[in-house]
């Protein structure tokens, strides 16, 4: 690995390198595999071929990225083919709009692609066994959507212009729509898929407008040219047009990464099969927002308040999601809220200025959150769709489930940011930056982050102690023995041989322990979470530069690369925290928060579960406290608020418009105009009554009238 010379703050200029076109294969391979899967679907292939094809294509694209990483010297711009580009000129001035299919490879891209394709491969292997109950049409459709997702994600990350980013952005939205709605015979899944796509679409509008704003001000949407224009202070007028750019891009990021205004779709996205939740709604897709802000970081400094807003929304989402996560009973819902909360941390990191912290936390989070989801998936797979933590207990004692329990334990430790785990260091980096900033609100956010860390530790281990520890007790879920496939195969039911109806029959049901594919992937992910911590360990113990820090520093996501960094760390007064130096203070408070959370969870959810119910009962009895638990269980009624404010008002508006269009505009106005000649006709009808004399009189009258009019005109003319 060539030594990454620490570059100066300015963003390195991209070099045109058409010979690196083979890196484009990393993007096109998933597309090929999606075509193959579609063909398998059309030809009704029953074998596991689609899974194999997808896994191979992802593994090879991972290899390509690794090779590109090894051969990486500096940012490179690789054109592939012309997509949307045309020019026009009026009176000498020459204008153009180019959006070609080309790649922009710099450290940030490689950093992202590594874990996207890596996790993609692992999760595809996991899914090959997880979905095998669904072989045939469902299987092909599943892997078709997975390959489309990975093509879109790589297009998003690798693309060299914002239009490619937008293509990837909506592509991943489509893939998540197809995958959430995989069990399309469940209305809740279909509704969740629609909700996800529409919420993403609202974010995409913000992104689109941001792209137009960028093009309006800089005349180009290609990163290399944008950074050049930015660094040479190229923007034309610093008015609301320019400063609106960060806020619009932010809206896009929050839509995709499920932050405060647009986060309600992620928990519902858990309707999809678990590998989907792991890959898309935990590890890769939701990080697209972080990538966007990291990629266009210099533009977020155009407006002083932009980064502060990101920080505040990140911190706020973290806290809110943590509070909701505490009160959920469905394991996947808890992990979903924890994802939102961890994403909140990443945005907090971006907001306060440490792109390294945010990106490193993304990496660590991707691994351990995928691990947790896959573990939950294994449980769900085994216990016929049972995910309620009140109905599962003591899993680690059940034979065949030890690997799942202990790998889940590793995941929970990482999620709770137990001291000296990889997540601890990444979260520490974020909170360090927050607490050591000279802005009071950032420091407040830092403390808020610490509180959320405690809550996170609590609800993580609440799940673990409930499910894996304690006496062995479980009830089968209502799903068919496996939670996928709308119409399960007749042969599968016979093979299981048990009666799928009576959930309450305890003795007859014994869990279906996961086989090598699932266990293997879980172990690899656990090891991965460990490995991902190595750069942090080297930084702390060997005082080398953290690998992730080098990668991010080398890319465009560098703090203050453009503007003069006004709030550079004035080394003069070392920021202190609780009297101690920030570093030591943070490690002490952080670890105590984590351990405290775990102990509280241990006490309530393992030691004496009855106490937990008693406390809840007392809270409910006190009216002024009673609303808290219910509100938390109902996700602070955010969904209902959205429903009332937006959906129902628009629904009523639409009904009124529909009624108005059909009855007022169509029936009254249009038919009314058509009736005017008919009405006139009825006015003149009596003139034709049939009497001879009547006609004669009217004719004579008519002649007299016309003569009078003619003479009046004549006299008037003659004067």
């Amino acid at each position, binding site marked *: 690995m060539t030594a990454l010379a620490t570059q100066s703050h300015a963003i390195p200029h991209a070099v045109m390198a058409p010979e690196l076109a083979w890196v484009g294969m990393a993007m096109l391979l998933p597309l090929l595999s999606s075509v193959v899967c579609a063909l398998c679907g059309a030809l009704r292939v029953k074998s596991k071929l689609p899974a194999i094809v997808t896994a191979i294509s992802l593994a090879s694209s991972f290899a390509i990225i690794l090779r590109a990483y090894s051969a990486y010297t500096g940012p490179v711009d690789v054109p592939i083919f012309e997509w949307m580009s045309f020019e026009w000129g009026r009176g000498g001035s020459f204008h153009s709009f180019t959006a070609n299919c080309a790649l922009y490879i710099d450290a940030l891209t490689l950093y992202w692609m590594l874990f996207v394709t890596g996790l993609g491969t692992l999760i595809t292997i996991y899914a090959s066994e997880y979905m095998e109950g669904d072989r045939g049409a469902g299987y092909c459709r599943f892997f078709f959507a997975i390959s489309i997702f990975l093509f879109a994600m790589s297009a998003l990350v690798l693309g060299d212009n914002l239009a490619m980013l937008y293509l990837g952005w909506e592509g991943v939205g489509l893939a998540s729509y197809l995958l959430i709605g995989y069990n399309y015979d469940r209305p809740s899944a279909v509704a969740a898929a629609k909700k996800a796509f529409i919420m993403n679409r609202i974010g995409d509008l913000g992104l689109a407008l941001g792209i137009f704003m960028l093009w309006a001000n800089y005349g180009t949407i290609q990163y290399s040219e944008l950074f050049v224009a930015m660094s040479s202070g190229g923007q034309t007028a610093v008015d609301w047009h320019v400063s609106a750019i960060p806020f619009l891009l932010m809206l896009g990021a929050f839509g995709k990464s499920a932050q405060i205004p647009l986060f309600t779709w992620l928990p519902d996205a858990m309707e999809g099969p678990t590998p989907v939740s792991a890959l898309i709604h935990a590890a890769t897709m939701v990080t697209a927002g972080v990538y966007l802000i990291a990629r266009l970081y210099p533009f977020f400094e155009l407006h002083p308040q932009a980064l502060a807003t990101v920080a505040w929304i990140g911190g706020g989402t973290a806290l809110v999601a943590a509070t909701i996560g505490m009160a959920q009973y469905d394991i996947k819902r808890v992990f979903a809220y924890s994802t939102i909360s961890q994403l909140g941390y990443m945005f907090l990191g971006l907001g306060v200025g440490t792109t390294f912290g945010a990106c490193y936390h993304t990496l660590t989070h991707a691994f351990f959150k995928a691990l947790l989801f896959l573990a939950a998936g294994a449980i769900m797979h085994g216990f016929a769709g049972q995910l309620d933590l009140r109905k599962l207990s003591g899993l680690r004692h059940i034979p065949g489930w030890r690997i799942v329990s202990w790998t889940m334990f590793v995941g929970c430790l990482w999620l709770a940011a137990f001291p000296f785990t990889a997540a601890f260091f990444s979260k520490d980096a974020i909170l360090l930056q927050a607490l050591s900033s000279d802005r009071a609100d950032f420091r407040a956010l830092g403390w808020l982050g610490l509180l959320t860390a405690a809550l996170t530790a609590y609800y993580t281990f609440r799940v673990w102690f409930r499910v894996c520890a304690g006496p062995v007790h479980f009830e089968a879920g209502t799903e068919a023995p496996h939670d996928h496939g709308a119409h399960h195969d007749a042969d599968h039911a016979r093979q299981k041989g048990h009666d799928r109806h009576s959930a309450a029959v305890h003795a007859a049901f014994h869990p279906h322990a996961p086989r090598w594919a699932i266990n293997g992937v879980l172990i690899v992910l656990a090891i991965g979470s460990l490995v991902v911590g190595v750069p942090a360990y080297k930084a702390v113990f060997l005082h080398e530069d953290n690998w992730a820090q080098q990668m991010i520093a080398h890319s465009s996501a560098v703090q203050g690369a453009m503007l003069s960094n006004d709030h550079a760390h004035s080394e003069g007064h070392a920021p202190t925290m609780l009297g101690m130096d920030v570093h030591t203070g943070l490690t002490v408070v952080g670890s105590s928060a984590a351990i405290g959370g775990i102990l509280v969870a241990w006490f309530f959810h393992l030691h004496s579960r009855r106490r937990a119910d008693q406390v809840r009962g007392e809270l409910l009895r006190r009216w002024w406290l009673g609303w808290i638990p219910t509100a938390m269980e109902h996700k602070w009624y955010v969904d209902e608020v959205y429903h009332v404010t937006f959906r129902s008002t628009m629904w009523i508006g639409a009904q009124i418009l529909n009624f108005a269009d059909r009855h007022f505009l169509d029936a009254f106005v249009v038919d009314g105009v058509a009736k005017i000649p008919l009405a006139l006709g009825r006015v003149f009808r009596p003139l034709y009554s049939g009497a001879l004399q009547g*006609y004669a009189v*009217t*004719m004579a009258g008519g002649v007299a009238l016309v003569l009078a009019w003619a003479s009046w005109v004549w006299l008037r003319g003659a004067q």
Partner: protein
Amino acid sequence: MIDSLSPRLALLVPEMMLLAGAVVVALMGLSKRRGVRDALPFITCGVLLLSIIALPLTYTTPRALDAHLLLPLLGRFVKPLIAVMGVWLVLLSVGSVDRRLEDSVARGRQPFDAQRVARGEYYAFLLLSLMGAMLLCNATDLIWLFLAIELVSLPTYIMVAVGGHGSRPQEAAVKYFFLGAMSTAVFLYGFALLYGSTGSLELLAIRDALAAQAAGNGIDGLAMIGIALIVLGLCFKVTAVPMHFYAPDVYEGAPTHVSAFLSFVPKTAGFTALVIILTCVGWTGHAIIAPDGVRVQYLGLPTPIAAILWMVAVLTMTLGNIGALLQTSVKRMMAYSSIAHSGYLVLGLIAGASAGIDAIYLYLVAYGVMTIATFAALASLERRGEEINAFSDLAGLRVRHPVMAWVLAMSALSLVGMPPFIGFFAKISLFIAAFEANQLGLVIAAVINSAISGLYYLRLTLTPLVAPPTARSHEVTSVPSRWPQVTAVVCGLATIVLSCAAGALLDAARSAGASAPSTPSTHSHGEHP
């Protein structure tokens, strides 16, 4: 032998042929043998075809020019038009004149009684009326004009009364006759006043006198009132407001083949008469001494006459279209449509001079073809021996009479002015003429009116093609004789085929419209630039 006749008589050879034909047909109508009586319409057609052939031979340009006519070449376009349409009108009526009588005689229930047979007279009067219309083009003085107009309308009164059976034709005849007589008196009085003011009956002399008056201090009051009365009198012939009230009753009462005749021949004759009279007045306009003493030459008719025609045009279009919307009877609706089309034609009159007259005659060609096609389709159908009258009879005609349904649809679309049909080209040539006379307001009125006409013509299109057949429409059968169907098909196809020849027709009309060079004292408006 022909060139030995004086040029003016030589021009009248076609009319003489028609006269002779009329006499022969009248006499043959009395023959006992059924074959002869049945052959009458074909003899009439033969006579008409003869006149068409004779026309180009006799109506040569040099002879026309030195015949001192007001519009020398008009006859060369109008006469063949009238003769051709006359042929179709005759074929339309084959088999329906005296049908009841002929059937009862054939079945022996009644002895043949020469007194009661009317077929011979019908075709004789038809020929006479056509002759009148042809004579009109050669008018050189007011007497000739008055006689020609009377010769057109008198036979039609009888045709209406004689053509059919039952009380309805007679009621139509009485209304038509009395109101016709009244309108004749009106325009006769107009002639008198015009004669009084200009002092001569010769059309050329009148034109020069009026031009002299215009050059002086404007046309004097007497002439103005006279012309106004003539125009209003002639409005009866062309069913224009205010003299249009007879049309609905007469068209509905008269038998279909007579209504077809009424809707075309008097209208053509009426507009030719109006063109002749207004040519005397001249579209060169009149000079108004502007306040600063400068003589400003304004194109168009003198303001009062232009005002009359403007009012007549707008009212006719609107009342015609509006009246047609409510009708349940097809023939009555065709009456209102004829009123509406007269309204559009008056637009051409206002435009006048070169563009207006050509547009009028192109429109008359198109109008003739369209209405004859519609009436022929109606005449070729009957319900229990009675004529087709109500729309409900036509519902679902496509099922049993597909060809007639398509002819009705095509002619209705052409009447509304739908593009590929001749009606559209006629209408835009009229609008172009109106633009030439700076009549933007009238064009907008005409545009809105043709949009309104879309309502009832669409009903005439969709009822036969699309509407489900009703109990009444099942009883609709075709008339024994095939000729009305032949007419309908030929005229229906003509509405499309003619549109390809629209250009040629317009040019022919243009050459016909040029008026005679006036005496050098007043400048005659130049040829079309």
